[in-house]
């Protein structure tokens, strides 16, 4: 490309415009990391030792993992059907699955609170089973699942679409039942999409705040902790938690990426 740029002033212009976005994102992150890790490393070390902070980060990672697991189990069949079959009302189902992406987060929180609170339609039923959502870990999971499942379903659907349907047809003529042709052919060929969809879903769950703060202020997830400390101690109290959270997220994502890249070669 660079050899083309020399002969092409338009590309230079495009490049400059485009880079503004990249620079903005880098500036925001590097400024935060620099001011914390280089200018105020002491505060950062104190935060690493704070058991409340660590507990909230662990809770965030853990609940989002459960939400993703639910999304994967329920999402794979849905994604497969959406990828493989045409039927009346398919558009509508696809639109419904995308609603959690466009709905404002606090609105999702109000909707879920109204459904799952102790007096809510579903909340009443589950409280008889001993499961409580309001101000409880399961409320966090349900909120994360609500906002993150569309990302998993979308990615898995694209994955199944990218698998040549003739492969399953051939498997069936060779003697595979529909189930075997699904789990021996379609599923392994979609594994990378499923994996990256799960990562996206997990990341989306970790990032959620607006919906969770309404259904479950306690137990505090990392985001709630950041806001609480920001409101009481300002930037000094909250930035170290933000930096710690983002470092943990980055390390995990990069590690998962590497695992999935190595998996590709096999």
């Amino acid at each position: 490309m660079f050899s083309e740029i020399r002969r092409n002033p338009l590309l230079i212009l495009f490049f400059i415009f485009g880079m503004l976005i990249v620079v903005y994102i880098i500036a925001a992150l590097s400024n935060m990391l620099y001011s914390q890790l280089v200018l105020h490393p002491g505060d950062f070390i104190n935060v690493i030792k704070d058991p409340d902070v660590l507990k909230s980060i662990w809770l965030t990672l853990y609940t989002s993992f459960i939400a993703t697991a639910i999304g994967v189990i329920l999402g794979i069949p849905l994604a497969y059907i959406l990828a493989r079959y045409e039927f009346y009302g398919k558009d509508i189902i696809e639109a419904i699955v995308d609603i959690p992406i466009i709905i404002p987060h606090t609105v999702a929180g109000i909707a879920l609170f109204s459904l799952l609170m102790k007096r809510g339609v579903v909340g009443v039923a589950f409280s008889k089973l001993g499961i409580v959502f309001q101000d409880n870990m399961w409320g966090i999971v349900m909120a994360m699942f609500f906002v993150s499942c569309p990302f998993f379903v979308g990615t898995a659907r694209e994955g199944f679409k990218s698998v040549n349907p003739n492969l399953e047809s051939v498997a069936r003529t060779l003697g595979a039942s529909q189930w075997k042709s699904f789990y021996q052919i379609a599923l392994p060929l979609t594994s990378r999409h499923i994996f990256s969809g799960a990562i996206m879903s997990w990341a989306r769950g970790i990032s959620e705040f607006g919906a969770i703060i309404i259904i479950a202020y306690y137990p505090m997830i990392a985001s709630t902790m950041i806001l609480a400390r920001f409101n009481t101690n300002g930037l000094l109290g909250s930035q170290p938690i933000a930096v710690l959270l983002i470092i943990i997220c980055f390390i995990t994502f990069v590690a998962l990426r590497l695992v999935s890249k190595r998996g590709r070669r096999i």
Partner: protein
Amino acid sequence: MIHIKNLSNNWGDFTLKNISLDIKESEYFVILGPTGAGKTLLLEIIAGLYFPKEGKVMINGNDVTFTSPENRGLGFVYQDYALFPHLNVKKNIEYGLKLRKVPEDKREEKISELVKMLKINHLLHRNTETLSGGEKQKVALARALAINPKIILMDEPFSALDENTKSKLILDMKELHKTEGITFVHVTHSQEEAILLADRIGIMMKGTIVQVGNPDEIFYKPVTKEIAQFVKIENIWEGKVTNKKEDEMIVEVNGNKIVALSDHFKVGQDVRLIIRPEDIILGKGDTSARNNFKGKITSVIKHGFYYIIRIDCGFEVEAAVTKQSIENLNIREGKDINIFFKATALQVIKR
């Protein structure tokens, strides 16, 4: 072997209309037709991948219309080969055997027999994505053959290959058919493949089978104008029966009297005469030919190993001749020439 009765279906853009077809045991049957005729859908219905709206599919006397594909035991080879990309060549070939729980030693035996027959021993541990088109085709075939099918269905198996690979594979297919005695059903739009491979051909157009016969019947005696055009016969002359005696008749085409076999036609009937360009003889020839016309050469075009000559005899005639004839008869645009053809070489159809 395969018996299809009154099959009708519509699936997306493709429609099948009232198809009946009999394919015999150990036959190499080619379904030939232009793209969009519904050939692939018909093949997929025979395989059980789609179920028809109406009609029946019988295999070996059993009604399998609604039998799942995994219970039919047919081999299927797709145009895009459809090799499993996450399995290597050996595991692809082995797939059907593993599903059948064939023990490992028997599997190894079968695989080594197949790769020997198809000359792909050296590919056994290769990743399928590194194979050439012709190699993929052979692996797909080996995979289908592994389950010992009585019938192999092939959907445009050579259309993605270059010409040299295609010619070689066609010879291999002929050999395979001869030695294995499997029934082949081969879908294609290529007349060349059909001529080279078919015992019988079914011509499929617009969702229905319009003619079934051996290659000579199809290519020399097409039963409709559309089939004649599809098999590239430009000599389609419209005329009227003016005279008839015993088993011969005279057909007048633009004032020219052409002798044809009378068959069941009546005096006064409108007919079309069809004759292949290689049945037109040029120059001083054959006195047994009753049809003998004088014309002017309007064009001479080289096509690979032969030349296509167009002659105006009061009606347009196209002839195919060799380089040697061109030299011997000194054929050039604008020259006068005599043409001959036999009454028996003419196909007469109603219009």
